[in-house]
Each structure stands twice: as structure tokens, then as C-alpha cells.
């Protein structure tokens, strides 16, 4: 996801080597327990960024030990980072697995949508327990950034729980309606016209 741009953002502060970047990312989000990224992912992303000319190995530095490759932002990298700050990040809440489970379960005689909802509620509450635990462990000295990230996750779960409750209340109503189907089969596939594709952001729904 946005690890690519996070790397650019971290390099904008100062040139760093790969290992540094990994630690810097963990420090930023509040630890691997919150948002783990493995070092391999950082290195792979770095070499892609290098191929794309967005970062460059700027020098080899000797720190009383082996040489280290230090990465630095290029002009193109700076421009890409600026574009990222300027653009909105897409919300993708409408691509929802729980929605799919519930709507399909409603029309499936062997499935039980009430049970799907109950399982999902349990999952959300377990997540909420974990997150509120973590949140309450952050003391007043903890970085505000870490609190804000956990607050965001908590707020999303609260919204998911509200939606689940609303959907549960309307389950009977839903079961009286047929599953939405297209009226007439269209010929051919809709053309995908997305430019500037990024991973996880493709426009097509048939993937």
C-alpha cells in the first residue's frame, strides 16, 4: 500500500540506508505490533524506487564497519512525493467483504446471515478490545501520532459495528428482496480506463 510513499517521505527528512528505513517506519507507526512491515518489503520497494529513478544510492558510508548504501531522494522522487501530498487517498470502504458475505448468505438457503453477522460482531469486538488495550497503554508521554493512528482504527470499528447493527435490523427486509442482478447480460467487458494505477487501486472490479 502506501509504504512506497512512506519511504519517499522518510528519505525527504534525511538520506538513510535500508535498515534505518525499516526502523524509521516502525517508529513512525508505533511498532511492529501495530503495522508490521518486513525488511524484505522495504528493500524490494527501495530497488523498485531506484529503478524508477525516484531514489538513488548516494554514497557508501563507513561507520567503523562494512560499507552501507545510503539512499537519497532524487528530484523526480521529490516531485512524486509532492504529488502524493497533493492527491487524496481513496477510501475503499465500499469494497467490503462483510457486505459480500451477508448479501450472498441472505440468498443462500444453506447459509445463515444472522450467524455471519454474529461472527463478524465478535471479530470486531475482539479487534476493538485489542486496540483499546493498546490505546490505554499509551501514556501522556507517547507520541500523539501513535494515539491518532489507534484512534482512527477504533473509529472505523465503531462505524463497522453501527453498520452491522443497522443491517441486522433490516435483515428480514433484505431477505424478501432478490439478490441484485444485472437485468440483461451486456456484451463484452466494460473498458478499464484508469491511468496511474497503483497497487490496490485498480479501477476494474473483476479482479
Amino acid at each position, binding site marked *: 500500500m502506501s509504504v512506497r510513499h512512506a519511504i519517499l517521505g522518510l528519505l525527504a527528512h534525511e538520506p538513510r540506508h535500508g535498515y534505518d528505513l525499516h526502523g524509521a517506519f516502525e517508529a513512525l507507526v508505533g511498532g511492529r505490533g501495530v503495522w508490521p512491515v518486513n525488511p524484505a518489503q522495504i528493500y524490494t520497494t527501495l530497488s523498485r524506487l531506484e529503478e524508477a529513478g525516484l531514489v538513488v544510492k548516494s554514497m557508501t558510508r563507513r561507520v567503523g564497519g562494512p560499507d552501507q548504501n545510503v539512499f537519497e531522494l532524487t528530484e523526480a522522487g521529490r516531485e512524486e512525493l509532492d504529488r502524493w501530498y497533493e492527491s487524496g487517498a481513496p477510501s475503499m470502504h465500499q469494497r467490503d467483504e462483510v457486505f459480500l458475505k451477508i448479501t450472498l448468505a441472505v440468498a443462500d438457503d444453506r447459509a445463515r446471515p444472522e450467524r455471519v453477522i454474529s461472527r463478524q*460482531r465478535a471479530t470486531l469486538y475482539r479487534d476493538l478490545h485489542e486496540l483499546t488495550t493498546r490505546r490505554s497503554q499509551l501514556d501522556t508521554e507517547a507520541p500523539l501520532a501513535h494515539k491518532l493512528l489507534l484512534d482512527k482504527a477504533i473509529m472505523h470499528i465503531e462505524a463497522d459495528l453501527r453498520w452491522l447493527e443497522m443491517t441486522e435490523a433490516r435483515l428480514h427486509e433484505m431477505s424478501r428482496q432478490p439478490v441484485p442482478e444485472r437485468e440483461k447480460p451486456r456484451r463484452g467487458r466494460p473498458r478499464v480506463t484508469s491511468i496511474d494505477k497503483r497497487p490496490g487501486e485498480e479501477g476494474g472490479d473483476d479482479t
Partner: protein
Amino acid sequence: MTIAETRGLTKIYGAGETRVVALDHVDLAIEPGEFVAVMGPSGCGKSTLLNLMGGLDTPTEGSVVLDGRDIAAMSDDELTSVRRKRIGFVFQFFNLIPVLTAAENASLPLVLDGVPPKEALGRAEEMLAKVGLTHRSGSRPDQLSGGQQQRVAVARALITDPALVLADEPTGNLDSRSSEEIAGLLRQVSGEWGRAILMVTHDPRIAAHADRIVFMRDGRIVDDTRIANSDSARDAMERAGLL
């Protein structure tokens, strides 16, 4: 081993036209030190459940077993004593006595139980310190914030060293910050001090502090879920759509 248990617990109010089945054969067992949240729409029987478990009301059918004993089989004196010593109550509107200080309020159950007032006050001061209110023990309720008043109520509930604390919407009258603090305190009461807690709440964020959530509807338990010891926070973040 369970500390409190209900068996086929049923409560029917009124008769004929006005007949309401407030509780409908509820079976619930609570372990020592367990923190259980009760959730469900208004009128589904949550308060009735707590009142019956606390011996404040009598069931139409079924039983409540505390410390292995059916409370219906207890004499009035025994029940009064159990209610005072083995169960602590926390309410939405604190229910403190306005003319008494925080320490006097917290000491009340001991005084009613015959402990000399001076000794009772000393133990109340200790309990207030435990709930984070050392410096306010001489304040009257109207000199305290809502969150502080609820802390006094928690101290009062804990003063007799009860096995079970019953809390009916303890954060229902508090702002979100004080609510979080009270929920955190209750978590400590169960997790560190080993008291079982049964807490009614509407707020998912408060319920999330519990180890287990019981969902009720129309006087029945429709779902009973352990929420503590889940998978990692990473999975939680992922599902919240942040990864």
C-alpha cells in the same frame, strides 16, 4: 468454578394486558475475576438481570447462585449480609449521599456492617487512594466531577471486598474521557484485583474493555462472546481498513 450463576432466570412483570417477560430463562455463569459486559437494546432486560443477581429483586422462576449458594434459600438477614459484603453496586447516577464526604460515602457499607466509623474511614481513605482519589477524600459529591464521583462509587462498591461488582451503565452519565477512565479502572478491578464484574453498557468502546460480552434481546441471551486474548493488533488494523 463460577462465582455467580443464573439458572433459568425468569422475571415477569404485571399480568394480563400489562404482562411483560423482562427475563426469559437466562443461564449465565461468571468466573472469578472475569469482566463481563452486557449489551442490548433498551428494555431487553439488562437492568432486571443485574437487579436479580444482586438480590434487589426476586425472580418469577429460576435461581441465582452466589458463591455456590442459591440466594432464594437464604434468610432475609443472610441475603442482606451477602448483598452488603459479597456484591458491590455501581449505578449510572453514582447514588452518593450529598451531605457526606467522599471518604464517608465510601465507608458507608462498612459502617452499616458495624465496623467502627474511625476504622471504616481509614479503610475508605485507602480504597480512595487505590481508585486514584487520595487528595479528594474530604470533598463532598457536589465538589467533584462526574468521573470523580463515579470513582467514589467504585471505591464504595469495593470497600467490603466483594466477589462480584454489578455496574448498570456506570459511564452512562459521563463524558467520553471520564468514561474511558472508569472503564480502565473497572478493568483494573477485575484484572489486577480479581473481582468479577458484570457491567451494562450501550457504548461499544466501553464494552471493548471487558473480557467477554453478553448480548441480550427480548429478555434472552442471544450471543455470548469472549473478546480478550484476540489475535494481534495488526489483524485488527487490517480489518479496520488501515492496512
